[in-house]
């Protein structure tokens, strides 16, 4: 990193390292914990309250008729599983949202093609695993070896997505950097559509298939029982898939790593400087183009890793898979305050949980009139509400309107 020679050097090494660890590692970890607990508690409390209020109504009777349990028991019974699923989904969204938020923070522009960068990561990761599986390597691998191969696939997905993001920036965004706002956005939409069909073309020419399914290997599909007790007459049971643990672990690692990178390292300082003012940053000896490329590389790599994790969790992928997760991750980024990394984290977790809650409970609370299929609408509803009432997001600062 040649850029920041003029930035003041820390006085001593030791306090700086200590500060780096608190700022870059402990604080994001604490934030993640607080966000999860707070969101989970608020949503669960709201849901239980609703269930209690609806006791004895037609909705309750419908629940008893269809599921043999009353609405409160139904809610409590499913709650632990829904919470865990929500957290996992939330981490995936958060990891994708980081890509949007980093690019927005630096360039003030919605990288519409990020959803396809995510899809490319998913495809590369899955194809690597399929190739390994065909070579018999996955079946032969011991447990640790299987974990190793998964990490390898994630890294491959990250590399492919990161490089693709940099290429896209170089070709389709950089020539338009000083154009009116809508111009690069339209170009990004074009890139998004182009990449969707490009993935499809490559896939259909090489494999002849539209859907790809991640091979089952290691112990990722087995479930670890966490608890199995009774609360009164309600059976409470929770078990977590190993792959969900992996998704959570990997996502936390990435989130913390990114926080460390942006808040503690010199590169992070340069990124923040470019985000504040490209002109001033370049006067301070920062190579702006290079920092922007690196931003795309980092955001793209995170998106690619999220893609592989998504494929691991949901097993089936197709070339258009990026659209909805991408849109929801964007919603998450806006909800948290776009351009703000902590905000993306919070937005991702809130949105993931909300969506899982909606998917699990919509049907029973509306007597089957509106099922889980409306959870996609929920994200947009939230996005519209956030933009109307708090356009700067939950954690964002008030930003003046720009043309």
């Amino acid at each position, binding site marked *: 990193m040649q850029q920041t020679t003029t930035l003041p050097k820390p006085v001593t090494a030791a306090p700086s390292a200590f500060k780096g660890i608190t700022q870059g590692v402990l604080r994001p970890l604490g934030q993640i914990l607080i966000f999860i607990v707070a969101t989970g508690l608020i949503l669960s409390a709201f849901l239980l309250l609703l269930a209690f209020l609806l006791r004895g109504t037609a909705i309750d009777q419908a629940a008893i008729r269809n599921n043999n349990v009353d609405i409160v028991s139904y809610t409590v019974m499913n709650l632990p599983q829904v919470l865990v699923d929500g957290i996992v989904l939330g981490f995936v969204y958060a990891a994708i949202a980081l890509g949007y*938020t980093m690019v*927005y*923070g*630096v*360039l*003030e*522009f*919605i990288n519409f093609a990020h959803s396809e960068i995510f899809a490319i990561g998913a495809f590369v990761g899955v194809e690597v695993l399929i190739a390994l599986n065909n070579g018999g390597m996955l079946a032969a691998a011991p447990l640790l070896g299987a974990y190793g191969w998964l990490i390898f696939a994630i890294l491959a997905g990250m590399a492919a997505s990161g490089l693709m993001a940099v290429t896209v920036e170089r070709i*389709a965004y950089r020539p*338009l950097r000083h*154009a009116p*706002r*809508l111009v690069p*956005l*339209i*170009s990004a*939409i*074009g*890139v998004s*559509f*182009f990449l969707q*069909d*490009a993935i499809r*073309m490559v896939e*259909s*020419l090489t494999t002849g298939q539209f859907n790809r399914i991640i091979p089952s290997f290691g112990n990722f599909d087995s479930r670890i029982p966490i608890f199995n007790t009774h609360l009164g007459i309600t059976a409470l049971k929770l078990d977590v898939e190993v792959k969900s643990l992996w998704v959570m672990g990997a996502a936390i690692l990435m989130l913390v790593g990114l*926080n460390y990178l*942006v*808040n503690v390292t010199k590169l*992070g300082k340069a*990124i*923040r400087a470019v*985000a*504040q*003012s*490209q*002109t001033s940053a370049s006067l301070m000896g920062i190579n702006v183009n290079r920092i922007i490329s690196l931003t795309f590389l980092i955001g793209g790599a995170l998106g690619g890793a999220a893609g592989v994790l998504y494929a691991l969790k949901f097993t089936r992928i197709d070339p258009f898979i990026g*659209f909805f997760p991408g*849109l929801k991750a964007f919603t998450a980024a806006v909800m948290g305050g*776009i*351009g*703000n*990394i902590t905000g993306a984290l919070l937005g991702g977790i809130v949105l993931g949980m909300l969506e899982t809650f909606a998917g699990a409970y919509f049907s029973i609370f509306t007597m*089957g009139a*509106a099922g889980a*299929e*409306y959870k*996609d*609408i929920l994200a*947009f509803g939230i*996005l*519209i509400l956030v*933009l*109307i009432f708090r*356009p700067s997001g939950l*954690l964002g*600062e008030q*930003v003046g309107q*720009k*043309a």
Partner: protein
Amino acid sequence: MQAKTSLPVPGILARITQFISKGSMPYIVSTLYVLLTTLWVYNDPRSLPAFLLFLSSIALVYVLPMDKRIKLVMALIITLIIIPILGIRNISYLEVIFQISLFSALALGLNIVVGFTGMLNLGYVAFYAVGAYLWAIFGSQQLFLLHSIPGTAPPTGVFFLPPDTFYLFIFLGLGVAAGVGILLGLPVLRVRGDYLAIVTLGFGEVIRVMANNLDKPINLTNGPQGITPIQRPTIPAFVLDGWNTIFGPLVGRTISEGEFYNLFFYLLALLIVIIIIYAVIRLDNSKIGRAWVAIREDELAAAAMGISVVRYKLMAFAVGASFAGVMGVLLAASRTFISPESFNFMQSIGVLSMVILGGLGSIPGAIVGAAVVVILNNQVLQGLSLWLSELRQSGMVIPLINFNLSDLSAQLDPAKYQRMLFGLILILMMIYRQEGLIPARRRKRETNNVAPVETPTPPSSITGTEA
């Protein structure tokens, strides 16, 4: 159009344009061109180049410097006599021209929102869906099936409304779509430009998901199966007989009512598009149009000049939406079948790429954009697919790399790569020609006078967090 005496093309082309622009040459050239291409298409109804050349003759008539009255007569002859005859000889041409008219109207509507007012609307197809479902629900048997599970109730054969209420629903579609546009606009118009794009995208998806799922609790849209049959307006017998006696000998055969519907919807779409073009031109040159452009250029300055920004933005939304609503009603009737998949995000992007290709804010641009994209999509890509499959069947071997063409993957079907086409159009136009194929006249005036001063806006969002 007298101003367009010389086209800006270099060298030999310039001399040709000069030659055909002088004196009575335009009349001779255009008449000959139209006649020759017409004869070619007439004799060879399957030839794609002939058809494309024929379409270009319309553009030629529009571009050449001629007396306006004569232009009008030529246009009337082409649209009312030549196209129907050629179209009946090869129905797919009529379909292409119908689609061009349909998408021209959509592109003109989106052009008002994106091109004039500068609001990127990525969910434009939602308004199209509103119009289509409006007639689909009222013009079919759907209202009798409200309480039955999709696909279970047998069609009763009785329709809710008489078929000729279709004409009423054209106006209703206009009003309802405009109303939906205002309803959507009211909450979201305070949102910043690039956020607006995403919100409208979300709105488009919301409409599609609702169309997909409103088969319960009451079966309003019949879910993913879509609604069919939808009624078409009746055609009086004497019209069909009249056509067959007058044009039958030229076409070479008499046509049935089903074939005549193609002609009917082509003419109806054309009529509506002409009305829309007229409306857009009038709007463009009015106080409203200038207010829209002022908002596009600088919202703050426009507000300072006393323009009610929200009101004019809503107006743009409503006008744009109403065009799509009308065309939706027309689509439902002409297809007799509507399903949610006709209104996905790709359609919105398709219309956007038409507007971008033609030129933001340019009225002829929107039409040319629609024509080019529809032709690329329906004719050129299909033609390429056909050519590739012929190559595959020929089993030829490319000598140097020893590649047998029959090994060419059957998956490589260009007709399926519409997204790539739209994507490429958007990217290339943005990088190389932001003003579009036919730049808006207003924009041309601006760029000819003074080059606008670039003032980069200082970004102020902060990556990372100190909060």
